[in-house]
């Protein structure tokens, strides 16, 4: 049977506490990142503060619902939204306001965030822009990690099924 080449609209729930858990694990195992991709060991106080942030995030229990995978049109939209100007034979000019945001808008379909009245707020550009900086950064990191995991899984699947080699084969012409 031919395989379905259309992206199904599946949703994945990501726990925001996982972002802080990953940051905590990196802090413990690698230390604090310094300029030039170097690291110094984390102090006990830094590790304790990070552990407190993890505990607080677990207590909050906040989550986001994201698309499992973007389809071709959505991926193009991420790029189109990011680019300010593009001319033939020139480097594209990126819109700094859209860096990170274009991907968040494309992936995000729901969240547990409530407004000041305690009411769940639907996802929208306006609501995303109204988030506090830390929450926005966590959302970006959660989506980046989700995208990387998806890319890795697809790459693995491609290699396992040998799809790539098949797609590169040129069939002889029947003419």
């Amino acid at each position, binding site marked *: 049977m031919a395989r379905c080449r*259309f992206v*199904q*609209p*599946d*949703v994945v729930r990501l726990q925001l506490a996982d972002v802080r858990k990953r940051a905590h694990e990196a802090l413990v195992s690698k230390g604090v990142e310094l300029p030039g991709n170097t690291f110094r060991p984390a102090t006990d106080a830094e590790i304790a503060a990070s552990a407190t942030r993890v505990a607080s995030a677990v207590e909050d229990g906040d989550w986001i619902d994201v*698309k499992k995978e973007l389809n071709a049109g959505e991926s193009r939209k991420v790029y189109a939204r990011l680019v300010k100007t593009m001319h033939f034979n020139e480097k594209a000019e990126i819109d700094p306001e859209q860096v990170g945001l274009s991907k968040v808008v494309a992936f995000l*379909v729901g969240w547990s965030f409530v407004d000041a009245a305690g009411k769940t707020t639907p996802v929208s550009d306006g609501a995303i822009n109204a988030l506090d900086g830390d929450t926005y950064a966590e959302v970006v990191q959660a989506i980046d990690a989700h995208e990387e995991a998806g890319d890795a899984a697809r790459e693995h699947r491609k290699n396992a099924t040998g799809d790539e080699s098949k797609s590169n084969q040129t069939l002889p012409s029947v003419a």
Partner: protein
Amino acid sequence: MASTVTIGGVTGSLRWGYHEAAVLASWTLTNTTEGWTLTATVVSVDAFRVSQHPLVFLAPHASGAWRWPVKELQIMGATLTASLGPKE
């Protein structure tokens, strides 16, 4: 004695997952012993998405939306008719 319940609304939509498959207006839902039947005016439709499964009919209300799964649907011009499963 069989009873029929009819409800209606101004706006509604068909969804395929998180995608909007169709925007509907002036919809009417009739519940008979055979289940729910939806009749609506089609404002816009995505031919691909509306042909996919599972589709859900969304009727917005003050604090969210009611959802019914679509079992079968037919679009004739600007009129949509669908049979729906039990409200989710």
